[in-house]
């Protein structure tokens, strides 16, 4: 084991950490938003990320295939935008369906029932994917040609820059949405009570549906970017990365939007930088021990509230 200080300061690693952090942050936002208004963790969210990645894969494969075959002549960035938009729309429909079928009937049930339902929906999505597409791994088509820039001796690809930039833009857009308009205001108010908010003419169901839709759309973005960066998709990806994003949501503070982004990036950094110091086989062990340690001292996460006084009637 050699500690190479140069490695720690390497910009290459920082950009990798930012990229992984983007995936975790985008997924963690979905967990956090749903938690903040419904007080439940949508344990199917990791699998919604997987569904988003596969929908993106389907759309991208189709468009790239048509372009290669010559029946369409779309530049790469147009295909990327269409893939993002299409996958966001379709995945948010999946998310809304999960809310309608799985969670709404359990609105007043004990939280444990909702958690178990979430886990089951996750299994259904995963097994459904296995039945439809088989256990084979899929490789994500190359939408944009990868170009490598050399800046000060550091090699950066255009794809990494795009992923980090667009992810941050989505987080900023979400932040503005929640801060600046009436639906965002209703979402924040719902985080405190269900008693007065409906009196203001707000439909709890509509806001819940919207929250699932936004969370799922962001998960789809994460799925597509993940596919572009590590072009292998498999049905179990939702579990592996979904759980890590869930850890980010907890670490950031249950229900905190800012916390989810911050903790998502933090986990990205821990995961990239731990193997630079320790053997890479111990990566997850050490990375998550660090997180466990943080939670021992900050059980409510970085931005969480120590208690919740939400009143339910």
């Amino acid at each position, binding site marked *: 084991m050699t500690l190479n200080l140069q490695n720690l300061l390497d910009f290459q690693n920082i950009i990798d950490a930012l990229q992984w952090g983007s995936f975790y942050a985008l997924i963690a936002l979905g967990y956090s938003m749903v938690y903040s208004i419904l007080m439940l963790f949508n344990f199917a969210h990791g699998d919604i990320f997987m569904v988003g990645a596969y929908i993106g894969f389907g759309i991208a494969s189709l468009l790239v295939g048509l372009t290669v075959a010559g029946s369409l002549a779309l530049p790469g960035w147009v295909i990327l935008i269409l893939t993002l938009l299409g996958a966001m729309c379709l995945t948010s429909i999946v998310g809304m369906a999960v809310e309608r079928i799985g969670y709404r009937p359990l609105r007043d049930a004990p939280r444990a029932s909702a958690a178990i339902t979430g886990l089951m929906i996750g299994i259904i999505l995963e097994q459904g994917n296995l039945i439809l597409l088989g256990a084979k791994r899929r490789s994500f088509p190359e939408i944009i040609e990868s170009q490598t820039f050399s800046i000060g001796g550091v090699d950066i690809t255009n794809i990494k820059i795009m992923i980090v930039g667009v992810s941050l833009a989505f987080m900023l*857009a979400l932040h503005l*949405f929640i801060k*600046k*308009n*009436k*639906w965002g*205001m*209703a979402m*924040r*108010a719902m*985080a*405190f*009570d269900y*008693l*007065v908010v*409906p*009196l*203001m*003419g*707000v*439909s709890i169901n509509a806001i819940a549906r919207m929250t699932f839709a936004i969370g799922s759309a962001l998960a789809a973005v994460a799925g597509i970017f993940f596919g572009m960066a590590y072009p292998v998709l498999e049905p179990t990806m939702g579990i592996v990365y979904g759980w890590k994003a869930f850890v980010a949501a907890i670490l950031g503070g249950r229900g905190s939007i800012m916390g989810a982004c911050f903790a998502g990036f933090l986990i990205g950094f821990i995961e990239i930088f731990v193997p630079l110091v320790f053997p890479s086989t111990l990566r997850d062990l050490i990375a998550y021990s660090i997180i466990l340690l943080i939670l021992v001292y900050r059980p409510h996460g970085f931005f969480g509230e120590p208690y919740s*006084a939400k*009143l339910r*009637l």
Partner: protein
Amino acid sequence: MALLEVHHMSHDFGGLRAVNNYSLNIEPGEIHGLIGPNGAGKTTIFNLITGIYRPTEGDIRLDNASIVGLQPYQIAARGLGRTFQNLQLWRHMTVLEHVMMARYSKLTYGLVGAFFGTPKRKREESESREKAQVLMELFGVDRFANQIVLNLPYGAQRRVEMARAMAMEPKILFLDEPTAGMNPEELIQMMEIIRRAHRKFGVGIFLIEHRMRFVMELCQEIQTLVFGEVIAEGTPEEIQNNPKVIEAYLGSEMVE
């Protein structure tokens, strides 16, 4: 024609009759009080009229249309605003946001407006902001406009809740113990504010209160509720001199 009428309303919780044969008549712009010992069923009556519970028997008419069986938000939309005994504020939102949130259903811009700030959204939001400003001034909370309510003094939090209720432009306002936990100074302030709001908007008010001085000075009509039944009804003078009321409050030995 009365603004709010309740006809022979009763409500059972399991086998327990919480409210028995309750009737009420509030004219537009009238201030009506409901007093009675703890557990008499006062808040239950509020919850029945505002649609949180559905009465077992009887009819409730707002503006001459029955509201029995409607959802709380539908009743609120028909012009019934309320505040709560235990403050129901959104602790981490600002005062301005509370008052603007109450105008949610009056903002009609769509998703495009939400993302790109269309002229319609700008117009609606600035109109909302102006109305919110007027209300915050009226209730004396305008200097806290951009603070989160958690940090406000208790009396100011109560006034924020009232400003929010008034922002929905109700015809009648239900106040559940508006002075609970207030010191004498805040109490006088609250009385003045209720009077001012009443004068300015001509809104009908129905309030639950324990502080006799407050009720007697403010209300035109008072009902006394004991074990779910109205035992006395009338003007403040009539209530003050009614032996049944004195008995209910002070025990029968005092009367004899």
